[in-house]
């Protein structure tokens, strides 16, 4: 019996060491462009990282099948950060020092992007992030770019719409999760510029199941003409339902955080008439043919949808698509794989039409989007409708 156990033990030990000795791939060959990427494919932000990675893999293959870039094949080197900034730092060190990649894409969440930025700047390598925070590009860092719009822009889009409708006195109810808290702060900072007064400012926990108390307070505040709800996940759906139940008859604005069919499903009839800003990708089929983004968003939706199912299409995958295409475009214009030349070409990007909007980078703007990147939507008959 003892010998059986010890033999098994040895076997297990041998297997473990066998794993440990899996060797690391050698340095890059000159006929490939190594695209390093680190995404939160698992963990709490997997809803970001998963479509991002799938998008990158799909389009890298597609680009390689049609001849690659500058006659070189793209080689994707990927690590999963599980949205942990600590892991992201280690993996980026690995991408830079061991894999010696030519360009860096990714960082699904803001935390991991901000964590690796000092290293990227030191390593002097072109880098495009897929994360939202404004801090990533403000102040502008030489080597860091990003594709998604910011919370600030969502606030601006909402206030712009309110102003158009003559709504200047509003109540806010925000989630205390990272997304809600960040957008709450940004909206409060922006409101004044649009002549919007926030009369009452309430919050709720991300796991709360009833927001009647907060909404009652908003209802009781005299002069509230509209309500804004920055939040993410199920919270906004509950707010929307409670809002209807309490009979608040002022317009309700949601954020881009709930720009998914799931929200309409959860909120049901109560969602009728709710307005929210969202990327063009979400309403690809409803855009007029004259829309500059129509072609790219319908193509992406069709291609990604064909491979992974239509319900898997999300704006997050779109951010990754834009990142990859922007860098490919920069390589082509630079005509070389020299990191400094590629960065310069990237910064000179002008009028690139992507899924997130029309991108024009400059030395002072490494996000390159304006408010036209957001469309104002209204929920009518359980579906999105474009509002002009």
């Amino acid at each position: 019996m003892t010998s059986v156990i010890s033999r098994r033990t040895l076997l297990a030990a041998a297997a473990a060491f066998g794993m440990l000795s899996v060797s690391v791939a050698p340095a890059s060959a000159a006929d490939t462009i190594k695209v390093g990427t680190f995404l939160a494919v698992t963990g709490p932000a997997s809803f970001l990282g998963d479509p991002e990675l799938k998008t990158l893999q799909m389009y890298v293959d597609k680009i390689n099948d049609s001849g690659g870039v500058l006659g070189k094949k793209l080689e994707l080197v990927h690590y999963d950060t599980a949205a942990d900034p600590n892991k992201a730092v280690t993996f980026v060190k690995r991408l830079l020092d061991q894999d010696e990649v030519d360009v860096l894409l990714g960082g699904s969440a803001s935390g991991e992007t901000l964590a690796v930025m000092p290293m990227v700047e030191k390593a002097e390598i072109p880098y495009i992030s897929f994360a939202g925070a404004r801090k990533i590009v403000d102040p502008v860092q030489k080597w860091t770019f990003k594709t998604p719009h910011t919370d600030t822009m969502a606030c601006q889009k909402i206030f712009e719409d309110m102003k158009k409708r003559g709504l200047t006195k509003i109540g806010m109810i925000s989630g205390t999760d990272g997304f809600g808290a960040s957008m709450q702060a940004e909206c409060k900072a922006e409101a004044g510029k649009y002549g919007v007064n926030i009369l009452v400012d309430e919050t709720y926990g991300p796991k709360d199941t009833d927001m009647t108390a907060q909404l009652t307070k908003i209802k009781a505040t005299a002069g509230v003409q509209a309500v804004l709800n920055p939040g993410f996940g199920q919270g906004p759906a509950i707010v929307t339902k409670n809002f209807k139940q309490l009979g608040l008859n002022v317009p309700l604005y949601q954020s881009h955080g709930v720009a998914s069919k799931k929200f309409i499903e959860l909120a049901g009839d109560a969602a009728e008439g709710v307005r929210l800003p969202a990327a063009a990708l979400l309403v690809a089929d409803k855009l007029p043919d004259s829309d500059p983004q129509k072609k790219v968003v319908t193509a992406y939706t069709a291609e990604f949808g064909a491979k992974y199912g239509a319900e898997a299409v999300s704006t997050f995958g779109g951010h990754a698509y834009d990142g990859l295409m922007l860098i490919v475009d920069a390589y082509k214009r630079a005509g070389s794989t020299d990191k400094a030349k590629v960065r310069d070409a990237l910064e000179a990007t002008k009028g690139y039409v992507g899924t997130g909007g029309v991108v024009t980078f400059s030395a002072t703007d490494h996000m390159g989007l304006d408010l036209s990147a957001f469309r104002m939507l209204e929920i009518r008959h359980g579906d999105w409708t474009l509002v002009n």
Partner: protein
Amino acid sequence: MRSVLSSRWAGLLLLAVVIALLPLGLKNNFQFDIAVRIGFNAIVVIGLNLLIGYAGQISLGHAGFLGLAAYFSAITVTRYGWPPLVSLLAAATLVGLLAFIIARPVLRLKGHYLAMATLGLGIIISIVLNQEAGLTGGPDGMAVDPFTIGAFKLVKAREWYWLVGALLWLAVWLSLNLIDSPVGRALRAVHGSEVAAEVVGVDTTRYKVMVFVLSAVFASVVGSLQAHYVSFISPQQAGFFQSVEWVIMVVLGGMASTYGAVIGAVILTALPQVLTALEDYEHMIFGLIMMLVMILLPKGIVPSAGALLRRVSSKAEGGK
């Protein structure tokens, strides 16, 4: 081999040699980074092993202590310009004090209840770090200035390696000394049977509190250093999963074995890096290895390996 493991100085010498020679095999910044992270984890796990392995008390809240110290160092150094070393010591004192204050009520609990209480502590700290965005930067985290001692600035992973290596050696030395002292014997008595220990006159509460504070201070020192090393901190570092990972390192390496704690940290820090080569199967294989180790080496790697060696050698002797 047995004499090497059981003899304190030989073991320490071996560790010193390994730490001194390892850089010869490390090719680049990334590999040094992994070595530094192994060192950080190993120091925390050595402290935690004293608590779990020797005193028999579980803690799922040590990431909270690490997080507190990390943020204390980050905020005082980056915002208020304190010398990093002063911040580190102040953080260690504060965290030690906090651990001391909560240790008495918390350590009255046993088993699952103790785990729950420490878990709660960790989560409270994590929530505070997330919510106090004005101070901590909230969920997005904050940048941290580099570690300086006088005019000397520690930036490169190679430089950090020597500091962390020295601290790891010191932590092992401290832990071995403690275990071989009357305190260590008292702790083992507590682990064996708290009632019996009390009957023979061991002040069990005092020893439990002491080792709880000590392990919290270990985590605190690592927290401060890690914040400077990574030059960025976020609330995730103080999260529940980090605490669980350390407990796994203790159990995997072998409870009540200081070198086991080091081995546990080495394996669990390096293995995910090695397994990335397997891409989609990474998590599956990782889980499989963990399961195999737990089924085949239930006492942890180092104690099981030690037992195996003893059995082999006694068989060899019997054969003569």
